[in-house]
């Protein structure tokens, strides 16, 4: 396999694609959003249970390419247990990594660092970020409700 391609499709990504973590529905989740990539027709549902500002549980459902599925899977396992603020900050760092704006701190990003190869494939940035955008949107929705109450 070509090096650039191997960098994109790392073993961790292939593994999460094959057996995605948290690939389920959370009944009665207090946050939910649907993400859609009109370019490729991929859809994703992200379910989040937030308790006292902490992501207690997070899951997803949907169809997508290996990059988008692995990204959703790794996102869910990374974010679980973190505060909402931490999750949002992590997205910013992840986004900088996949768009090549920053190398990213391996300690902060943990396993998410495997997505560094995406920067060489501009057409695939949306695949890697779809789950994250959907998660942020789901979290914001609840915030909106909170501020109006």
């Amino acid at each position, binding site marked *: 396999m070509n090096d650039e*391609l191997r960098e994109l499709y790392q073993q961790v990504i*292939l593994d999460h*694609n094959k057996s995605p973590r948290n690939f389920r529905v959370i009944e009665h989740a207090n946050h939910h959003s649907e993400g859609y990539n009109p370019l490729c*027709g*991929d859809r994703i549902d992200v379910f989040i249970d937030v308790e006292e500002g902490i992501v207690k549980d997070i899951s997803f459902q949907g169809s997508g*390419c*290996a990059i988008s599925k692995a990204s959703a899977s790794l996102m869910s396992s990374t974010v679980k247990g973190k505060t909402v603020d931490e999750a949002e900050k992590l997205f910013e760092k992840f986004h900088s990594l996949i768009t090549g704006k920053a190398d990213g701190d391996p300690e902060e990003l943990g396993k998410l660092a495997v997505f560094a190869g995406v920067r060489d494939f501009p057409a695939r940035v949306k695949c890697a970020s779809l789950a994250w955008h959907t998660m942020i949107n789901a979290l914001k929705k609840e915030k909106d409700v909170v501020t109006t109450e």
Partner: protein
Amino acid sequence: MNLKTVSPKNKIDTYDVEKIRRDFPVLLQKVHGQKLCYLDNAATTQKPRSVIDAVSRYYETINSNVHRGVHSLSEMATQAYEDSRTTVKNFINAASEKEIIFTRGTTEAINLVAHSYGKINLKEGDEVLITNMEHHSNIVPWQLICEEKNAKLKVVPVNNDGELIFEEFEKQLNERTKIVSVVYVSNSLGTINPVKKIIDKAHSFGIPVLLDGAQAIQHLKIDVQELDCDFFAFSGHKIYGPTGIGVLYGREKLLESMPPYMGGGDMISKVTFEKTTYNELPHKFEAGTPHISGAIGLAEALRYINKIGIKKISAYEKEILNYAASSLLQVNGLKVIGQAKEKSSVISFVFDNIHPHDVGTFLDFEGIAVRTGHHCTQPLMDRFNIPATTRASFALYNTKEEVDILVNGLKKVLEVFN
């Protein structure tokens, strides 16, 4: 029996694909260090040297505006532009140049008909009939005008093989149907629709038919008078011509009855602030400075096709399609979407556990260009309950060797994912 036409050896003798390939400079390129294997022809085709040269020559020698200058260059440009119209007219055997309107492409041609024909012919409760396999460009223009007029957009379903269910088409035709707009060849599945039957049936109700010919013009012999269609739309770039130029053929009587689509220069005969009289056909529908070099490039592309012969091209592409269909059977788990009996050289396929985008990225590294996604036919993807497919579409310059490269590339993808 004429042995010359049935002998496989003769087929090769009379169709020199290697010679044809040399006419297309882009095909000599390498991608990721591999020989380019361009199988995305349903999206756009590559351009032969003669087309590229014709466009350059226009800008180098006679570039000027058409239909208004008295100077020599303008006269030559006008002549070249109008000659291109005649070439198009002859290519599809229209009755007159008045029936050939240059547009930006198929999309603009369909929008023109939807808005102009729809404006005067659709009213509340009327129906427009399309099919489940339309490209978005033959859905959305009709949705827009139907919404405006409170008319209904009706859809003829397709069967599991990706063929139109003709009985359903017949059932849906009624006195409220004001136009039938149907794709000749499906861009996603390659299905060739029985358009002659569709036209005859619609005409028996007095209903005009628009054919979206974007995927037909480069593969099949088109004779609009024999088809008896009322409108025929196609794009130049899908038949080896430039982008940004397309054609709407319309029956003269219908075009005469329709109001202009856009207002501006060239489409008028006299303008005062009180009233404007419109120019005659086809200029009534060509507002503004047209894509002159595009029309010239398109005419050159049609001459290129004529030199080889569209029927010969058709037969050769059929051979490639059949070879691809049987070769792809060797790829484990590959499922072809669209098994119509009548097909043009398009093969769409899916794997259970590998997404088309991953397939596309891996193939790209083998130098293979295929299309992955919904191909602007989301309702059709929904019909087959899939988000997307990988699509290989073949043109007059593709070879059996390239089919083999595709098959090997797919086998490599399987090794990684399984």
